[in-house]
């Protein structure tokens, strides 16, 4: 854990308490079983906004607290721990960050206060094929075509659309915009959005800067998810008995647990460095964002697999939470580029 300010520490403690007590995994399970089409509970989102989380990267003059990306990352980590489904990443980090970064004063005035108060849900539409490949977008300012696998795309009142001609803001009720809600394995609110000559407003934030915020923020959420998955597994190692022994006394499992812990610590450093670099406006944001997302993807892949394996048969049952972690893991791993994409990008950024 990075050295936090007093404000950050208080916010983290509040977020942890809320997530563990008010929004444990049982809540997410209920949401999933309810077949909610938004992929999140609007009342819960309102509650989160009331705690000020929707405005963490929004300047005070537009109704936020302007505490920055690292601070929001701390909250995302805590909500990620319990698989809390909400538009915190897409709305409060990505869309709000993009508008704060590149919006005109009018755009900021129009959207940021409403995001901060939780009355607008926003989504970020990037990919046009099954793989993340922002370097080759076909959509232009004419805003026609299909954006795939848009997080919170079903519920969004506002869509930040990436095109070859830059970013655009599109209203959820814009003419020509149609949505196909997806039933993704993680039961979140993904949708395909089809644009037919839709009207939008240019937003002058660089795509890469917005994407790197998305990646670092998602990596923070994934770090939380992996941390809690690891802790649940560690608890099981300390309680499950086989052959008259706690299974956590078997050295082969101990070494695997120690390696997971090592990966958790290494990934934490990358995530925190990427978030801090964004707040500082540092030059190395692109490489740190790719590092954080790649490491978080590898970490969560490993930990979610080990969670199932170390739980044995019980981990294979739908009644246990391991499957929920595994399913969310695979989605988060791929979103905004998997480890493979980011290794390639990192090498390219470093010139080899």
């Amino acid at each position: 854990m990075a050295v936090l300010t007093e404000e950050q520490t208080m916010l983290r403690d509040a977020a942890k308490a809320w997530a563990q007590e008010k929004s444990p995994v049982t809540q997410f399970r209920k949401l999933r079983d309810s077949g909610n089409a938004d992929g999140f509970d609007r009342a819960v989102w309102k509650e989160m906004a009331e705690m000020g989380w929707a405005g963490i990267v929004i300047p005070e003059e537009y109704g936020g607290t302007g505490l920055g990306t690292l601070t929001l990352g701390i909250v995302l980590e805590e909500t990620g721990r319990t698989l809390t489904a909400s538009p915190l990443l897409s709305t409060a980090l990505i869309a709000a960050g993009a508008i704060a970064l590149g919006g005109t004063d009018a755009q900021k005035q129009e959207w940021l206060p409403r995001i901060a108060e939780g009355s607008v849900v926003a989504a970020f539409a990037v990919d046009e094929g099954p793989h993340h490949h922002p370097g080759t977008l076909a959509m232009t300012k004419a805003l026609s075509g299909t954006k795939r696998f848009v997080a919170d795309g079903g519920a969004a009142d506002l869509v930040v659309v990436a095109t070859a001609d830059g970013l655009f803001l599109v209203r959820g009720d814009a003419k020509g915009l149609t949505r196909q809600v997806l039933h993704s394995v993680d039961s979140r609110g993904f949708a395909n959005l089809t644009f037919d000559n839709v009207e939008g407003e240019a937003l002058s934030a660089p795509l890469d800067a917005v994407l790197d915020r998305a990646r670092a923020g998602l990596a923070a959420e994934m770090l939380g998810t992996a941390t809690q998955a690891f802790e649940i597994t560690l608890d099981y190692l300390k309680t499950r008995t086989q052959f008259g022994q706690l299974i956590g006394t078997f050295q082969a499992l101990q070494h695997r647990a120690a390696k997971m812990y090592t990966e958790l610590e290494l990934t934490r450093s990358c995530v925190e460095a990427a978030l801090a670099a964004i707040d500082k406006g540092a030059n190395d944001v692109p490489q740190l964002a790719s590092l954080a997302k790649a490491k978080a993807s590898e970490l969560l892949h490993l930990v979610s697999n080990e969670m199932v394996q170390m739980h044995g048969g019980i981990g294979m049952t739908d009644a246990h939470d391991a499957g929920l972690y595994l399913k969310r893991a695979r989605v988060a791993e791929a979103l905004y580029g998997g480890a493979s994409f980011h290794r390639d990008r990192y090498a390219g950024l470093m010139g080899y």
Partner: protein
Amino acid sequence: MSDVESFRAQARAWIEENLPASLKGGGARGLTDEGDSYIWGGRRAKWTNPDAKLWLERMGAKGWTAPTWPARYGGGGLSAAEARVLEQELAKAKAPQALASFGIWMLGPVLLEYASEEQKLEHLPKIVRGEIRWCQGYSEPGAGSDLAGLRTQCVDMGDHYLINGAKIWTSYANYADWIFCLVRTDNSKKHEGISFILFDMTSPGIETRPIKLISGNSPFCETFFTDVKEPKRNLVGKLNGGWEIAKRLLQYERQNISSGGFGAGGGYDLPDAAKDYVGIENGKIADADLRTRIAAHKMEAQAFGLTVRRLQEEAKAQKGPSPATSIVKYAAAKLNQDRTELLVEAMGSQGLGWDGDGYKPEEIMAMRGMLRAKANSIEGGTSEINLNVVSKRVLGLLDHQ
């Protein structure tokens, strides 16, 4: 013409004549109401395609569902060479497997070795003909890897046994007619207090509860026994001598579930999926990182296939399995998990679907297959147990003293 070749001609002719037309050419699906492509038989079978029933009956009557079992127990009475020829001819005709059966794969071989003549004559022919569908009562909630820690009680009441307890991971117990079951007949010893018993699943006091898995399917049940009475003649082998039978049966189980690599051959071929979803550059899968990992995986798969074949040949030549067979289950599990993960990865966001219009059936299958494959390293002995077995029995390493 050699005997084997003359057998080949006979087999081919028989198949040509008896394989119902609707099952020819492979790809048969939805043969039964369970919606899968397997014919499981049994008293409760419901036939959506009556040709599947016909095929089972014809094959069962020949004993070719269990080709090498003795004819006196209903088997085909074929030599190993003839059985291979039969397999080849069935494959050529793309005939569906006439019977998928834990009775044939697991129970039959141990009955042939350990059961009384009376027991063999009672059970084996019904297994061969698919009349009775069996399930396996091994694991218990507290006894997974430590199977011998099982606690289901079986008490000698003089003229019958009284069984109380619970099993878990009983495959398709909700569809099975009979169960082969490990029970505790002596609480004072661990391994030496276990017996192997068979009984009818319609006996009063048995309840099955399907377990929903992360893949969405329910191939397993919890099974509860409350004061279940069973005749004493259903005990196989000696009282308290069940552990030896249990271990032998596990060997057959591991061989069967892993020698085909958990079906790693089937479905969407990885390189094709990668080409379709990732694209091609200069004739290569466009993502070089993924391409490398796919190639490495395909090489592992080929190495595995060559190993299974080699071990079979060695076993034949040496009249017994090589110690190296113990690596097969571990390797097969890892391989199938790697394959299904790579398939999901190759499909990108289209591989992340659960259901609904947004995904094609093969995309849904890729995700569910990956989730299902997580059990490969748990079912039939965890990979950790497999590695323990290799290190102790094959490599001769010891436990802490």
